[in-house]
């Protein structure tokens, strides 16, 4: 009996091997037949692997180590993450709530604003459209310079600051307010300033997308009983520019989560008063460049990555087009 089973096994395994080999051969043949695709992709992919994927992998590896930038990284397992969630008081008490609050207001807020403005501009006659899109795009072109000069003067804490000056003369406040130093106001001001600069890439993409909407669809829609502009936007405009909507949504989220320099630009300090404007990027900056704890900073950025990836998956479900649609 034994030899029979043996041969059976042998046959089985050899046919299995054969099928594996066949499958690999098929796979390679398919790869070869689509070689042109890979050729087209090659320049991007090579750079992408070298300058994004490999560095990211190194960063993930570093998140499991203790690394100060000088000595060789020391493997410490998941203790960075354990420390983050159990002992890092600032992270749990200020960073996470601030980041979420900031991202929830600025992300969708900036997104909706840029769609509204792109759509409004699209309603204008063609000859003057360019000027308006330039004016609205302007803040994101000069963000850094204007931020420190215009806004710090506006929200300055003494009585000559623009906002204090106006409010004092109107009689709304008795004494000048320390807008930027007071933890009560800092977050709101950060949100306003970021919304002001949020007509960026997403806005441009939407403007481009609005051009691509087929105008015949509007006429068809009117025949089908679309009565007002709102319905037109909801039933025709948005579905026709889904790719741009998705792109701007992703850009809005990325921007909202990544924005961390706003608070330091406004207050002139890396760590804001009472951590009022402390978002996750400030936290990373704090650990990476002030304390030189690169391992912990990498762990933080891995958490940031997971967080934004989760949010983005939701977005992709909302706006994404299905394959072969």
């Amino acid at each position, binding site marked *: 009996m034994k030899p029979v089973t043996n041969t059976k096994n042998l046959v089985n395994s050899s046919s299995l091997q054969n099928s594996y080999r066949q499958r690999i051969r098929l796979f390679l043949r398919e790869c070869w037949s689509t070689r042109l695709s890979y050729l087209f992709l090659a320049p991007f992919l090579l750079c992408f692997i070298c300058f994004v994927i490999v560095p990211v992998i190194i960063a993930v590896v570093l998140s499991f180590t203790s690394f100060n930038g000088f000595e060789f990284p020391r493997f410490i397992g998941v203790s960075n993450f354990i420390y983050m969630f159990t002992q890092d008081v600032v992270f749990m008490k200020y960073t996470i709530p601030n980041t979420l609050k900031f991202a929830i207001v600025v992300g969708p807020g900036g997104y909706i604003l840029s769609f509204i403005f792109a759509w409004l501009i699209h309603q*204008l006659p063609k000859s003057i459209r360019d000027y308006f899109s330039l004016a609205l795009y302007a803040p994101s072109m000069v963000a850094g310079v204007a931020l420190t000069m215009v806004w710090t003067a506006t929200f300055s804490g003494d009585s000559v600051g623009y906002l204090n000056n106006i409010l004092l003369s109107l009689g709304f406040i008795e004494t000048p307010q320390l807008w930027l130093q007071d933890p009560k106001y800092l977050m709101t001001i950060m949100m306003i300033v970021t919304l002001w600069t949020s007509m960026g890439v997403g806005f441009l993409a939407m403007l481009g997308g609005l051009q691509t909407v087929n*105008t015949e669809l509007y006429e068809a829609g009117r025949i089908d009983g679309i009565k007002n502009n709102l319905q037109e936007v909801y039933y025709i405009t948005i579905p026709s520019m889904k790719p741009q909507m998705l792109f701007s949504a992703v850009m809005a989220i990325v921007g909202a989560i990544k924005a961390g320099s706003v608070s330091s630009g406004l207050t002139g300090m890396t760590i804001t008063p009472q951590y009022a404007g402390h978002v996750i990027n400030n936290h990373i900056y704090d650990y990476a460049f002030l304390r030189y704890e690169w391992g912990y900073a990498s762990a933080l950025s891995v958490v940031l990555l997971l967080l934004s990836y989760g949010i983005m998956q939701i977005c992709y479900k909302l706006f994404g087009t299905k394959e072969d649609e």
Partner: protein
Amino acid sequence: MLQTIRKQFALSRMFLILFLTGMGIFMFLPIVFLFNNAFKPLNELFMFPPRILVQHPTLFNFEQLFMHTAAGVVPFTRYLFNSFVVALITTFAVIIVSTMAGYVLSKHRFHFKAFIMGAILIALMFTPETVSIPRYLIVSGFGLKNTYFAHVLPFLASPVAVFLMKQFIDQIPNPLIEAAKLDGASDMYIFMRIIIPLTSPAVATAAIITFQTVYMDVEPSSLYMSKETMKTLAYYVEAVSSNIPGVAQISIASSIGLLMFLPNLIIFLLFQRKMIQTMLHSGVK
């Protein structure tokens, strides 16, 4: 009846224009400020709170800039030259590379496609600060330090541009490409004659954002370049505004602020027309 509707329409459009003009002026303030700042004499620069409009315009700030750089090792024009060369080459290269990648990712079928798309989506999120050390190791490992390649290559890996391109190319109907294929067009021909013209709004958008990021970025200059002659204007601005104390600094900074901004504006204006150009006549729809 028809007349009242027309009147209402005109009225609402008037309101719209008025509203957008107000908004536009508010948003446009920083540019006005920047232009005026560059021509302000010292006493107006130090005024607090700053006036937006200049009262006694002067070229003093630009004089200071040239005086300061004439004394330095590298003339200021060298930084400007580097910035332009790097930004223009990178913008051009990014457009070609990412349109190619976007075309393939959108219209071709092959293994690893979903995997590559996933990687790009994740890469959109990563903060560049955390990967600067590994990137430095790679750049110096390839021996790219102090070359223009180190200025250009890291930017070619631009997930944003590829994502944008893929999203736009998704909109080009498949039958158009299939028809071209049936007519015997090669992939290269399809790419050059169909994809590139039809994605011109996306190309314009990508060009604007790439130029801006490259032109403003100091990372390559400060990390990969040890020779002063290879650094860019953005680096010089940062060095000027953080290192040199004294009165000269603020006037130099304000004149250079304008110089940093102008090319951005020019590129934007150049491509804006292209972007707004309607696609309706291009044969897709």
